[in-house]
């Protein structure tokens, strides 16, 4: 294998059998990856594959969960490489330690890889150009690249990338490839269809649930019916009599039934007779909220931020506000119920299924089965939603344990009921908000929160804008599991902080947009302590959405709510319009302005933000999880209710602030401002301040 490499830039190029070339690049900002560099130099690994037959394959390194990165990440490479987007193929990469952070979470895929993938594309382009220039014996500077060809305009000569690949692979890797001037971008910033669009609408196998392998068995698992219960005696006689059932195996705290079809596995699973023993307290949501209240009524815990003198400000105030907000537990409810394929055989493991963290699944399976990571392969198909559920490793790990115990390749399928009862939930929270007001201004802001698990933390833009500010949070220990749910932290904090900001505006008789701009101006000009946001960028989205929605002009019968939030590096402002129809509020329009740096795929970006808004409306209005003696009362979509087409606004208008800065997060930031903007609109429409989620049950 002919390889050339430069230690300085960690790019590796190697000749492919058949004369193509492979290029890989490692993230430089991850200590774990930097540490592994010595081992991975020279190992073939690809973001770009150019084959002798002319086909060009770009690999999307991060899991695709509906956030569009299977399209947007290769777009970045394609832009710099200079290929015709319609002629390339895109594949999801398997887990490969040379590809850096292969995680779908924290709205981090595009923002973490933008510069990296530009360099990957530019490096390949430069090497192909050099190869062409050498073969023509002309200066490189006279050569240009377009649609997968290097062109020498002066002589009218052209060579395709495929024809140049072998020669390019033998060249020194450029230490610092020249990136395109963004003004020359042809693909980035345009509307590009999802690369799987056709496969999706024609029903082709794409998802984990569609996995079919030779000799594979289908499995369903009986897990504890409540948190706090553990596995006791198992009688599998009836299960084994079900036609198609092949095996029953015990793993950890569960029992799996393996069969020749999903239906047989389910019948077998349902025929198990299991004694579940209550080994811990069986908890109830009602008790959680009662305890929250007690915790919030006590003198407060140590604040994580304490500017000025909040108590003194309260005493000298013309008016004090003191209100409490309640937020329920939520399940993820991704449309594709969890599943995973595993084949543990002869000291090797093949794993294939939906996960946002393939690396974590592999490392856990390695530890549990005592099989070294290099003997474990893992890759993910396209996934039917994530929303944070698959940042947990349980589905993949469980499948591996079942395959190992049963000595068979197995596709584990969860039912919706399994998903609902075995989630890592968005924790329930309660918040007490207090404000001290003069006749015309906000003197002090005091927020105090409590949530299940590790507790709540975080600030809004108020921190830094006013002299007296205190924020504190506590956690309530529970055996109900908690996890990451789209825009973790932000999705609840935005609701309470921006609803309360509206209450402050009402009390002060201030316009909600004007008052926020007033605060942001103070944060910019007379910053109190440190701020983690850019007041100018906040202003950019507030100004844009005010313009889009014609804020300040009266529309008869239309009641408006406003909110703004910063998360994952991006700024979002929204206006929600509500109209009363037959005495019931109906959301008619949503306007949304976003500042997320440079937009990669305009179609995907707009879709993400519209989707986040619909998601935000859905979870503000309808679902909640209630624990009753450790069991989830809402077992499926008949009681865990999602928004329906009739609940969706007629239009959701999204605009992006034009920006030349590097891209920031986009899978999550559109969601947090929705619930408060809606609450504020509902207050305008009904005079009723909704301080408890979800809203629908309080409006009926």
């Amino acid at each position, binding site marked *: 294998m002919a390889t050339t490499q430069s230690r300085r830039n960690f790019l590796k190029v190697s000749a492919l059998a058949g004369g193509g070339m492979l290029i890989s690049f490692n993230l430089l900002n991850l200590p774990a990856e930097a540490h592994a560099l010595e081992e991975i130099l020279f190992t073939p690994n690809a973001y770009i594959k150019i084959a002798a037959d002319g086909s060009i394959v770009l690999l999307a390194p991060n899991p695709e969960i509906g956030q569009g990165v299977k399209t947007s990440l290769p777009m970045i490479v394609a832009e710099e490489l200079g290929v015709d987007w319609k002629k390339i193929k895109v594949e999801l990469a398997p887990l490969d330690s040379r590809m850096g952070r292969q995680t779908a979470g924290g709205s981090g895929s595009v923002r973490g890889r933008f510069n990296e993938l530009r360099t990957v594309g530019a490096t390949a382009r430069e090497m192909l150009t050099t190869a062409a220039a050498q073969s023509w014996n002309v200066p490189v500077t006279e050569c240009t690249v377009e649609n997968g060809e290097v062109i020498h305009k002066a002589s009218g000569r052209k060579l395709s990338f495929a024809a140049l690949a072998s020669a390019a692979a033998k060249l020194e890797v450029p230490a610092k490839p020249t990136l395109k001037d963004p003004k020359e971008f042809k693909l980035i910033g345009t509307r590009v269809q999802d690369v799987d*669009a*056709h496969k*999706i609408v024609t029903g082709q196998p794409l998802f984990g649930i569609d996995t079919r392998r030779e000799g594979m068995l289908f499995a369903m698992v009986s897990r504890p019916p409540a948190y706090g219960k553990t596995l006791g005696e198992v009688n599998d006689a009836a299960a084994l009599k079900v036609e198609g059932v092949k095996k029953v195996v015990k793993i950890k705290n569960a029992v799996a039934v393996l069969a020749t079809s999903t239906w047989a596995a389910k019948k077998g699973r349902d025929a198990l007779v299991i004694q579940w023993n209550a080994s811990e307290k069986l908890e109830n949501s009602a008790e959680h909220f009662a305890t929250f209240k007690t915790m919030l009524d006590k003198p407060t815990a140590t604040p994580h931020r304490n500017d000025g003198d909040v108590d003194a400000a309260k005493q000298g105030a013309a008016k004090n506000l003191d209100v409490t907000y309640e937020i329920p537990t939520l399940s993820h409810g991704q449309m594709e119920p969890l599943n995973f394929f595993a084949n543990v055989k002869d000291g090797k493991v093949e794993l294939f299924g939906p996960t946002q963290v393939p690396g974590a699944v592999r490392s856990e399976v390695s530890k549990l089965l005592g099989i070294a990571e290099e003997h474990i392969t893992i890759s993910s198909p396209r996934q039917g939603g*994530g929303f944070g559920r698959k940042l947990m490793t349980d589905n993949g790990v469980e499948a591996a344990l079942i395959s190992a115990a049963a000595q068979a390749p197995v596709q584990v399928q969860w039912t*919706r009921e399994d998903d609902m009862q075995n989630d890592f939930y968005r924790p329930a929270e309660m918040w007490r908000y207090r404000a001290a007001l003069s006749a015309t201004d906000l003197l002090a802001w005091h927020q105090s929160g409590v949530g299940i698990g590790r507790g709540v933390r975080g600030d809004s833009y108020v921190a830094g804008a006013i002299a007296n500010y205190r924020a504190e949070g506590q956690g309530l220990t529970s055996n109900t599991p908690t996890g990451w749910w789209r825009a973790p932290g932000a999705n609840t904090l935005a609701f309470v902080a921006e609803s309360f900001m509206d209450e402050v505006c009402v009390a002060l008789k201030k316009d909600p947009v004007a008052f926020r701009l007033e605060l942001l101006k103070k944060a910019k000009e007379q910053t109190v302590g440190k701020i983690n946001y850019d007041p100018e960028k906040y202003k950019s989205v507030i100004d844009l959405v005010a313009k889009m929605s014609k804020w300040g002009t009266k529309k008869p019968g239309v009641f408006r709510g406003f909110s703004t939030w910063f998360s994952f590096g991006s700024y979002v402002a929204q206006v929600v319009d509500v109209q009363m129809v037959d005495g019931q509020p109906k959301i008619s329009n949503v306007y949304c302005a976003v500042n997320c740096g440079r937009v990669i795929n305009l179609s995907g970006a707009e879709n993400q933000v519209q*989707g986040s808004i619909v998601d935000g409306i859905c979870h503000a209005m309808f679902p909640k999880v209630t624990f009753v003696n450790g069991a989830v009362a809402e077992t499926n979509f008949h009681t865990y209710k999602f928004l329906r087409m*009739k609940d969706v606004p007629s239009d959701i208008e999204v605009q992006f602030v034009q920006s030349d800065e590097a891209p920031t997060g986009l899978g999550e930031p559109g969601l947090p401002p929705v619930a408060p903007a809606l609450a504020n609109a509902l207050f305008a429409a009904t005079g009723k301040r909704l301080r408890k989620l979800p809203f629908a049950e309080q409006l009926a």
Partner: protein
Amino acid sequence: MAAINLNVNGKTVTVDVDPATPVLWVLRDHLNLVGTKFGCGMAQCGACTIHLNGNAVRSCTLPVSAVKNNAIVTIEGISETGDHPLQQAWEELDVSQCGYCQAGQIMSAASLLKRNPKPTDKDIDNAMSGNICRCGTHVRIRKAIHLAAKTQSKK
């Protein structure tokens, strides 16, 4: 187990299954037609929507023994070459995010367009309210149905 004859996407097939098996699993596990998706198993989400004699039904709660001579059409059979006006509109407007629910959405929309070639927003809201999309692609779904209706009317 029992041998059951079915008419699926214009072809007659015989499957040997438990007669109580929902059509969804017969399609997916026995006929390898995996475009029809499992979402809830209780006819609440619409991911499993197929056509039975042209009408949209939820295949997750329909026992295979109840199908009899009624013709089944799945997402794989709605057009021979994947160019049903709805499929084209879905691609053109880049409707999908995760894509998991979209086969069911298209099957519900196809049944709507058969009954009502020029649906209003309200008609769409009613016909599509049995289908959940967790990613929130509803606004584009509505637009795609209007676009497909327009394409169909020109044919």
